[in-house]
């Protein structure tokens, strides 16, 4: 047991400890050493942040060079092709791009193939005396081939991120089945995406409720009459509140025809998806709001100015809806009648709107 342990430590030492000083293990030790010093420095209270930065950068550079050197000495081959530069390239990209930080991952991954090609081709362009020259004739064509293959890899990676951008900008696309696509494969076909038409319609409904609730009834009726412009204003405001505002080009809020409902109206709001869909089907979102009049005793004290305004506001509505209730030449009674005003009440229901499909799925 002890012998086995001793054997193991000896092997580790011979692997990691250089036989001669001009070896990749030296660089690895340098990397570890500068890393340790950087850690020590950063733990000291008044440690110099620049020194820590320089030391950790040096540590990364030593590590990258050590890995490159080690892989040059012991080549890892896949079908006779050395993949060492791609490992070194990955380490270099980790060091140069810090992909764990937000938004850097795509740059690290996209540049990885090209950086690896550069690492692979560097010895062909620069010799040990640092003289730049074109690679030998017989090496040029394989180099071009490797470069083109890696450009193709980069294109595929960039295309992947482009598709991700689309899905982020237009998240409602994900409600569709991607199975027909000739380009992408979806590993999670049964997801429940947030269809942004729902928050769009909900916020539009609540905006309408805010605008109309408590307003005099005749103003609500006027609003319904000019609903097209009002809805456009509201929709414009709501679009800016969307989580992915780019998607607004794919939503169209239909201008509804208010239906008579007792003494009030039923307004059915509808948002149509006009963006790309799978198959011959499309979807929309609907939500109904009841707008009804209600007689309400006024609680606001009658200041002269507002009283005048209210009188002009309530009188036409009253004369149109209850013409028989007003008796002529009775100011007292009219004052009493003015104490009750007819206001609009908007009820959009508690249930959230749901996605509805039209047309046949293929």
């Amino acid at each position, binding site marked *: 047991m002890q012998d086995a342990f001793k054997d193991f430590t000896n092997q580790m030492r011979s692997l990691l400890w250089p036989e001669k000083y001009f070896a990749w293990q030296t660089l690895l030790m340098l990397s570890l050493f500068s890393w340790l010093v950087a850690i020590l420095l950063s733990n000291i209270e008044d440690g110099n942040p620049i020194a820590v930065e320089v030391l950790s950068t040096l540590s990364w550079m030593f590590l990258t060079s050590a890995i490159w050197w080690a892989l040059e000495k012991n080549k890892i081959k896949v079908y006779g092709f050395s993949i060492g530069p791609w490992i070194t390239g990955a380490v270099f990209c980790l060091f140069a791009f810090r992909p764990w930080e*937000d*938004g850097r*991952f795509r740059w690290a991954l996209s540049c990885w193939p090209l950086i690896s090609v550069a690492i692979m081709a560097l010895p062909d362009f620069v010799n040990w005396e640092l003289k730049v020259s074109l690679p030998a*004739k017989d090496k*040029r*064509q394989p180099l*071009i*081939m490797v470069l*083109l*293959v890696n*450009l*193709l890899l980069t*294109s*595929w990676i*960039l*295309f*992947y991120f*482009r*598709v*991700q951008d*689309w*899905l982020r900008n*237009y998240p409602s*696309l*994900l409600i*569709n089945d*991607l199975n*027909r*696509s*000739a*380009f*992408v*494969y*979806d*590993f*999670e076909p049964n997801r429940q995406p947030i269809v942004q038409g729902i928050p769009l319609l909900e916020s539009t409904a609540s905006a309408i409720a805010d605008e109309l609730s408590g307003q005099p009834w005749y103003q609500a009726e006027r609003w319904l009459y000019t609903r097209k412009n009002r809805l456009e204003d509201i929709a414009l405001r709501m679009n800016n509140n969307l989580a992915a505002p780019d998607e607004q*080009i*794919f939503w169209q809020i239909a201008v509804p025809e208010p239906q008579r409902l007792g003494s009030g109206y039923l307004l059915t709001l509808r948002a149509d998806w006009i*963006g*790309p*869909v*799978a*198959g011959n089907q499309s979807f929309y979102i609907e939500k109904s709001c009841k707008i009804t009049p209600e007689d309400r005793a006024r609680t606001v004290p009658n200041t002269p100015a507002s009283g005048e305004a209210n009188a002009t506001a309530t009188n036409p509505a009253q004369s149109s809806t209850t013409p028989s209730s007003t008796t002529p030449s009775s100011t007292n009674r009219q004052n009493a009648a003015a104490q009750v005003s007819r206001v609009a009440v908007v009820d959009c229901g508690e249930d959230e709107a749901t996605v509805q499909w039209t047309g046949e799925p293929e």
Partner: protein
Amino acid sequence: MEYEPIFPLRAIAFQVLFLMVAISIEAGIFRQRLRLGFKTSVQYTTVINLAAVVAGWIAFLVIEPLASPEIKVQIISYLLFDRLLITSWTAEIGGAILGIGLVVFFATYFIKLKGLEWILRLADAWKIPKKMEKLNREQRYMQAREGRTESQQALAEFTDSVIQANAASFTAILLLLLLRQAARSWA
């Protein structure tokens, strides 16, 4: 940043398949008509086809963000759902698609022509000089009889074989695409 588990694996599979088809067809034609060896013809064809494909990807990646929203919608619809977002076919749409196809064909042809010339020059196998400095008697006789020099003839043979190879591989890929469409509507 969150990423959806949606990968362009089908694009990669189709690309590899079409590249293999194109390379095998074109390499055969170049081997016959340009008298290249078996291995060299496959290598050269691979290089020029990869160059054409990479140029296509770069064109797509550059054009897509610059395109107008209407075009962008069509691109997204085609790539994600394999259909165009049009209600009816008009002559304009058909013409536009035909025009795009022609532009792609000739752009590919140009890339392959220049690429092959460049590779042959790199390998010192380019036998067609720019100008004939001195014509010998036989060549002058040939020029008088045929109306063109030997080098012009060689160049014509070269461009001919490239366009033939390009047309053959485009036809094969188009047939495969039609086959896919037929299989899909049949299934």
